[in-house]
C-alpha cells in the first residue's frame, strides 16, 4: 500500500482534535481576521495514527540495525532519557518563569556544565547554541570578540581541507576570509603547514580533532602553541569528541573553544535531523566573551544573566537565540552522563575506537583504507581505489548495502580522499553485530570484484523506494504539494 500525502487523504471538514465551541466574545482583531482559512486538510485521530505509523515504517533507525554513518555518531538512544526529558518539572516549564520557580532546572544546567568542564578541562561553557554549527558560530564569535577587545583586526581563518563544510561556512558568515590547509600524506595536519600559513592576519585555526579521516591530530599540541604564538586562537570542532571522552582533555591540547554535539557524543536522539544541541566550551582567554543568557550563582541561588553588559556578562558576545538553549537535550545528555559515569564514558570511547579499528582491520584485505598506518579513532575510512575498473562507484556500494539490511555509511566525505566511505560503528554495537556487518561488506566487496553489476547498479532493490532521481528534484524543484486545478479549494 502506498501512503498519500495528508493533503490527498485529509479533508477540510475533518478534525482530529475535539475542542469546545468558542463563545465568540467581542473580537479585538482590529480588522485583521483571516479572510480565508488556510488550506490545511485534517485527519481524524485514527487516520493520523495510521498515516504516521506507516510513514515511520519507511524509515530506518538505530533500533532497526547498525547505522554506520561516519561523523554522525549514531549510537543507542536510551529511552530513560526520553522519559526524563518529559517530566513535567522539565518539559512543562516556561523559559521566563521567575527564577525562584525553576531552581531545579537551573541546577540541572549547572550539573551539565560541570560534566562538560570536567571532561574538557576548559574554563567555561556556553549552553545556548542549538546545534553544532550554531556552537561553531558562537565559538568563532567569541574569538572575534576577543580580538576586538584587544584591538586586533584579524581577517583570516585557517581551515584544513578535510574539515566539515560548516567550518568554512561559519567563518565566512562572520566575515572571515577562509584559507584552506592541506593535510600531509598520513591524513593529519603538519605543524609546519600551520606555521607556514600563520600570519598577523590570522584570527584562528579551526581544526577537527579527531579529524574527519578518523585520525587523532598528533601534532595538535605543537599546532596550538604555534597558533597562540601568532596571536591567534585555536578553535576545535568537537564533532568527534566521542572518541576521546575521558582519554584526553582538550584544554590540555591547547584548545581555546570547542563545540560539543550533545546529539552525537551524548546521545540525544538525532530525530531525523534535529533538534541538536551544541554547547561551546571556552578557554580562560575566551570565557569572558560567552553569550547571554549565562548561569550564575548569587546568594546561594542560581540565576540567569540575560542581558549583555549586565553584571556577570560585561563582555558577553551577545545573544545567540531567544531563550537559554535546548533544555530537552540537556536533560537527556545529563541522564546519559550520569548513567555512564566517568568510568562508563571512558569505556564508551574505548569501545567506539576499538570497534572502528576492528571494522577497518577486518576489511583491509578487500577494501582500500587510506592512512591505515595510524590507528583509527572512532571511525574507519575507506576510499574507492579498490573499486577501480569494476564500473561500480562508492554510491553503488552504499545503495547495495541497503539491500543487505543496513543503512549506508557516509559517502564522499571527507573530500580529501576519492570516493570516501566513512564508517562509524560507535560503542553501541555488539561484536556479533559488527561481525554480521563486516560479513555483509565483505560479501559485497567480493561481488563487486567478481563483476556482479546488477547487484550494485540497480540497488537498492529491497527498499521502500528504488534509487531516486535527485537531479530531477533539483532541476524543477517541487517543494510543496499544490492542489490540482481540478479540485476546488475547499
Amino acid at each position, binding site marked *: 500500500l502506498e501512503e498519500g*500525502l495528508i493533503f490527498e487523504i*485529509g479533508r*477540510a471538514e475533518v478534525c*482530529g*482534535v475535539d475542542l469546545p465551541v468558542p463563545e*465568540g466574545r467581542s*473580537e*479585538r*482583531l*482590529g480588522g485583521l*481576521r483571516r479572510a480565508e482559512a488556510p*488550506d*490545511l486538510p*485534517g*485527519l481524524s485521530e485514527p487516520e493520523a495514527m495510521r498515516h504516521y505509523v506507516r*510513514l*515511520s515504517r519507511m524509515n530506518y533507525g538505530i533500533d532497526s540495525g547498525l*547505522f554506520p554513518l561516519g561523523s554522525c555518531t549514531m549510537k543507542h538512544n536510551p529511552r*530513560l532519557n526520553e*522519559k*526524563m526529558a518529559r*517530566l*513535567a518539572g522539565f*518539559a512543562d516549564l*516556561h*523559559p521566563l518563569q521567575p527564577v525562584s*520557580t*525553576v531552581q*531545579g532546572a537551573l541546577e540541572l544546567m549547572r550539573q551539565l556544565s560541570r560534566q562538560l568542564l570536567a571532561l574538557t578541562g576548559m574554563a567555561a561553557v556556553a549552553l545556548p547554541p542549538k546545534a553544532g554549527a550554531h556552537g561553531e558560530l558562537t565559538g568563532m564569535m567569541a574569538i572575534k570578540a576577543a580580538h576586538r577587545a584587544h584591538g586586533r583586526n584579524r581577517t583570516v581563518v585557517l581551515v584544513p581541507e578535510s574539515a566539515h*563544510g*560548516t567550518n*568554512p561556512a561559519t567563518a*565566512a558568515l562572520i566575515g572571515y576570509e577562509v584559507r584552506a590547509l592541506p593535510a600531509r600524506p598520513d591524513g593529519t595536519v603538519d605543524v609546519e603547514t600551520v606555521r607556514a600559513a600563520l600570519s598577523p592576519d590570522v584570527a584562528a585555526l579551526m581544526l577537527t580533532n579527531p579529524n574527519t579521516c578518523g585520525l587523532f591530530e598528533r601534532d595538535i*599540541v605543537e599546532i596550538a602553541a604555534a597558533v597562540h604564538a601568532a596571536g591567534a586562537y585555536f578553535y576545535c570542532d568537537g564533532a568527534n569528541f566521542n572518541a576521546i571522552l*575521558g582519554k*584526553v582533555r582538550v584544554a590540555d*591540547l591547547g584548545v581555546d573553544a570547542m563545540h560539543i554535539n550533545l546529539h552525537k557524543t551524548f546521545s540525544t*536522539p*538525532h530525530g531525523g*535531523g*534535529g533538534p541538536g544541541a551544541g554547547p561551546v566550551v571556552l578557554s580562560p582567554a575566551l570565557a569572558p566573551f560567552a553569550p547571554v543568557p549565562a548561569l550564575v550563582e548569587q546568594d546561594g541561588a542560581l540565576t540567569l544573566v540575560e542581558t549583555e553588559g549586565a553584571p556577570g556578562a560585561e563582555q558577553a558576545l551577545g*545573544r545567540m*537565540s*531567544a531563550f537559554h538553549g535546548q*533544555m530537552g537535550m540537556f*536533560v537527556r545528555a545529563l541522564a546519559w552522563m550520569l548513567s*555512564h559515569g566517568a568510568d*562508563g564514558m*571512558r569505556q564508551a570511547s*574505548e569501545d567506539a575506537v576499538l570497534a572502528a579499528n576492528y571494522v*577497518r582491520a577486518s576489511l583491509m584485505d578487500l577494501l582500500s583504507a587510506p592512512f591505515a598506518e595510524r*590507528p583509527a579513532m572512532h571511525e574507519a575510512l575507506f576510499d574507492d581505489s579498490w573499486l577501480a575498473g569494476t564500473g561500480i562507484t562508492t554510491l553503488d556500494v552504499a545503495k547495495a548495502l*541497503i539491500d543487505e539490511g543496513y543503512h549506508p555509511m557516509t559517502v564522499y*566525505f571527507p573530500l580529501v580522499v576519492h570516493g570516501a566511505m566513512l564508517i562509524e560503528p560507535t560503542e553501541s554495537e555488539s*561484536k556479533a553485530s559488527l561481525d554480521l556487518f563486516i560479513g555483509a561488506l565483505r560479501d559485497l566487496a567480493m561481488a563487486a570484484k567478481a563483476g556482479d553489476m546488477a547487484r550494485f547498479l540497480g540497488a537498492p532493490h529491497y527498499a*521502500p*523506494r528504488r534509487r*531516486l532521481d535527485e537531479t*530531477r528534484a533539483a532541476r524543477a524543484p517541487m517543494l*510543496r504539494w499544490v492542489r490540482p486545478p481540478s479540485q476546488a479549494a475547499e
Partner: protein
Amino acid sequence: MRYLPLTPEDRAEMLARVGVPAVDALFADIPAGTAMTALPDLPLAQGEWEVERALSRLAARNMAAGSVPFFLGAGAYRHHVPASVDHLIQRSEFLTSYTPYQPEIAQGTLQYLFEFQTQVAALTGMEVANASMYDGSTAAAEAVLMAHRVTKRRKALLAGNLHPHYRATIETVSRYAQDTVAARPAQPDGDADLIGAIDDTVSCVVVQSPDVFGHLVDLKPIAEAAHKAGALLVAVVTEAVSLGLIEPPGAQGADIVVGEGQSLGNALNFGGPYVGLFATRLKYVRQMPGRLAGETVDAEGRRGFVLTLSTREQHIRREKATSNICTNSGLCALAFTIHLTLLGQRGLTRLAQLNHDAACDLADRLAGVPGVEVVNATFFNEFTVRLPAPAARVVDLLAARGILAGVPYSRLAPGAGLDDLLLVAATEVTTPEDRAAYAAALAETLAELCR
C-alpha cells in the same frame, strides 16, 4: 554498563584482530603528557533507577506550568498537545534516524518534511517554506542575512516592538557579520511611525505581528513602503496559532515570514528545543537557508522525496553556502505537522478562536482590577497591562502565591524604563477559574503593595 554490549572477552578478541595488545595502543597518537591517567573527576556509573531518582528530584524542585494558573507567553506558549503526537514522534524509526541522506530508506522523514513545508506555506500564506530552523529567533536572524543577499544591501530596520530577544539575536549575528541594524525603540502603544524610517539603504524591515506587546500590526502599508524602497518585508510570528485567526503575512505582502512553531506539537521545554518556521516567495528559494525536501520519482517512476537544492548548503558550498546551518529541528517539525494534521483548518480556526476568547475574557477581568490598565486595543492571545507597581515585583509575589502571572517587560528589556508593563497570555488551557483566581490575587497583591 547496560549500554555497552562488548564483554571483556569480546574486547580481547577484537584487539587480537586489530593486532594491538591493549586498547591504549589505539590512542597512541595522543601527545605524551596529555593522555589522562585518571578518570575525570565525576561520579561513576549509576543504574537507571538512581539516575531517574536524581533527575526526578531536580524536576520536583520546579513549579511546573500545568500545576498552577499560568499566564506566560512572550514567544513560548502553553497549549494542549494530543497524546498521539508525542507517541508518534517516539517511534524508533523517527526518533533514532538521521538527516535523510539516503532517501530510499528515509521516505518517512522526507515525506513528513514535505508535508511540513506545505503546511507552513499554507499557514503563512507564502509560496515555499523550508524544512525548519532552530527556532523563531534564529530564523529571524537568518531572514535578515537572506534579505541582505537578495537586496545586496546590508542594513536591516527592526520595528520597535520586535521581541527584544529576537532583536538581540539579529543584532548579535549582524554585529559579527559586519552588517548594520537600525532598531527602533519599543513603543508599548504601537510602533506607528515605522514606515517613516524606511529608506532605500534598507535591505528589509522586520516586523512582528502580534508584536511583543500583543498588538496586531497591519502589514500591508509597511510592505508597500518597503517594496517602494526596494526592501523586503520580513514578518515575524512568535505564536503560530495566531495564524489560524489572523490574516497571514503572505496575504499582506510579506517577502519572508519567519516564526516560532513551538505552539503546535511542542512543549514549553524551558526554552528549547523549538522549531523555527521559514517561508518565502518562490523566486527567492535559492537564497533561502536550511534544508528542503522536494518531490521526485524513483527508478520505477513512483513518487518519492529527496533533500534538494543542497548546492546552497555548507556541505557542498562550504564558505559560499547560504548559511552554516545543517541540523534543523526535524522531530519538532514532525510534532508540529502531526498536531496540525489533527487540527486541520477547522480545528486550527477553532483553537485560535478559543485562545482569543480566553484572552478577551482575561483582559476584561484584569481591566477590572483597580489600578490596572490594559494597554491594547487589539491582540490575539496575549496583551499588555500597565501596573501601579513594578511588574517583576508583582510577578514574584504572585509566584509565591502559586500563580505564574506573566512576563514583566523588564525581564526582556531591563533598563528600558518600562518596568510597569506586564505581558499576559491566555490559551485554550487557561480555565475561567484560573482567570478568576488571577484577577482576585492580582487585586489583593496590588492592594497590599500600594497600601
